[in-house]
């Protein structure tokens, strides 16, 4: 309980810092925030209305609380480039990003777990060395290099998967998955490299422990030992790592969206930077920072449930 409370306190602090970051973002933009938000061609009347609404003439502390209230009530303003409320822009775009992340993690885990097992059972043998080398290289490949290579192989040369296009998950599941296959694969590669190496290292050290030998001496089969005793414990470090890299993963997804021109939060934020749509940039950034903090807290707390030694 104490542990969970401590983690929640950290979450609260992070959320406050994130909100300050988002709030200050407006003010760091050179010039009047109202002009920045409304765009260079805004008419003086609108600027005055917005200045009043944001309380830009009031002290900074008051402005912060007005901003915070607006964020919480979903009054994030509207994109000046097309007049669409920021809230609905995010609502339209988040699903694809979430799907991309979840899909990539499923792929990464499905491939990484058996490979890690195989490698850990015979450490330093050919298979282990080979997969370590491959993982090490994959980890050095950024998505913007991997993406085009995968498109070249699977779309251009083999012609199996589409290189672009997007059908919503609600419209057609098979078509959606077909369109999302390459993006998910691109994002999965880095995670795969990380997971397989972490899991392998963890398994190698666990398999050396006495309780594995005891399990063997109980007459349990090899696979039962590995699954019940080895995997359970090594999955703990997997959970920690997946929590730690969630930020990298979300931003990685943004890049992948941009590569495949998918309508997600990443494409939204890049387009907004190009059109200087500050409110959208601000909203997406704050959303990501808060999401990362939330996931980290969830991982920390769930970790306590998975590892009885931490509880108490």
């Amino acid at each position, binding site marked *: 309980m104490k542990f969970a409370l401590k983690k929640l306190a950290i979450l609260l602090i992070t959320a406050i810092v994130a909100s300050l970051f988002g709030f200050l973002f407006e003010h760091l933009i050179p010039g009047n925030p109202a002009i920045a938000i409304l765009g260079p061609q805004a008419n003086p009347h609108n600027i005055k209305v917005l200045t009043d609404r944001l309380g830009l003439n009031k002290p900074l502390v008051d402005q912060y609380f007005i901003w915070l209230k607006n964020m919480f009530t979903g009054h994030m303003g509207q994109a000046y480039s097309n007049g669409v409320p920021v809230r609905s822009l995010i609502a339209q775009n988040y699903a694809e990003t979430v799907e991309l992340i979840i899909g990539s993690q499923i792929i990464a885990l499905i491939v990484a777990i058996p490979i890690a097992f195989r490698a850990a059972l015979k450490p330093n043998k050919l298979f282990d060395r080979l997969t370590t080398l491959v993982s090490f290289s994959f980890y050095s490949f950024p998505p913007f290099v991997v993406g085009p290579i995968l498109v070249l192989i699977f779309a251009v040369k083999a012609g199996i998967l589409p290189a672009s296009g997007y059908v919503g998950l609600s419209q057609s599941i098979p078509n959606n998955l077909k369109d999302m296959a390459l993006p998910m694969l691109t994002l999965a590669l880095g995670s795969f490299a990380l997971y397989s190496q972490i899991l392998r290292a963890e398994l190698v050290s666990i398999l050396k422990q006495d309780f594995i030998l005891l399990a063997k001496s109980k007459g349990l089969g090899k696979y039962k030992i590995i699954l019940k005793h080895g995997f359970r414990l090594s999955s703990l470090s997997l959970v920690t790592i997946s929590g730690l*890299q969630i930020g990298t993963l979300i931003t990685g997804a943004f890049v992948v969206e941009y590569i495949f021109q998918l309508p997600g939060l990443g494409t939204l934020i890049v387009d907004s930077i190009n059109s200087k749509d500050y409110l959208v940039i601000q909203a997406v950034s704050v959303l990501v920072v808060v999401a990362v903090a939330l996931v980290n807290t969830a991982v920390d707390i769930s970790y306590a449930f998975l590892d009885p030694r931490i509880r108490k």
Partner: protein
Amino acid sequence: MNLTFSDSNTVVKASKRQSNKLGIFFWICVLWIVIVILLALFAPLLPLNNPNKTFVCQPLSGPSGSHLLGCDDLGRDILSRIIFGARVSMFVGIVSIAIGLIIGGFFGLISGYNNKKLDTLLNSIANIIISFPTLILLLAIVAIFNHSLIVITLSISFISIPLLFRVIRSATISVSNKDFVQAAKIMGSSKIRILFVEILPNITPIIFVYGCLGIGSAIIAEGTLAFLGLSVSLPTPSWGNMIAEGAQTYLKRDFLLTLWPSLMIIFTVICFNFISQRFESKFNSTEGAI
């Protein structure tokens, strides 16, 4: 895209095989990086076509004797664009990490050595900055200011500061607990002397290990921004924007446009990572021998 040293270092650790020898691949990597740096430095002096000049050759014509890597869609010489692109990557990578090491290293040293209150404060600040996703910070900075080479370099160095701070801080803590430092303290050496004469030389291997790792990450960070069109503006070549140009339009017709800059970035980053890894395991194994 990531600049999270902790993550990549776990992979390095996991795959580490301790050995005292640096090995042939280490020297190949060093050679590659020296070549890339020299090419970048002396690019204007080399007998190359102007990288921005269009139609110096047939657009999308493949490699030939006069244009070793072929030509892009606007008839620009790819070899010269790649070499001039190296200037961007290398400048951002080396300069940003150098700044990060100077600032992060300075604070890491004084924070790790004997200053409880300051240490707690600096460490908390570093942890808060680190908890923000790297790319989000970069995008925000680029959105507020602009995407010139200087802004990109400074923003990447800003992100590297807390990460390098953390590494150097913990190295300082472990070194300052060693006997020879305690002995120097008892003998009445000044704090500054202890920091720079006793501690700093002992953490240089760590600075080197994480410096190399950091340069690799910084190159990828710049490449990512360039790929998103948020680094140096076109037509100035950078590896990232060359990949973007090639991949978005010409992958089907001529994938070499994408391949060359991709290979450059992959080789360079792998080399930096590999040098870092070899150096770390050599450092660890020699330390173990003492």
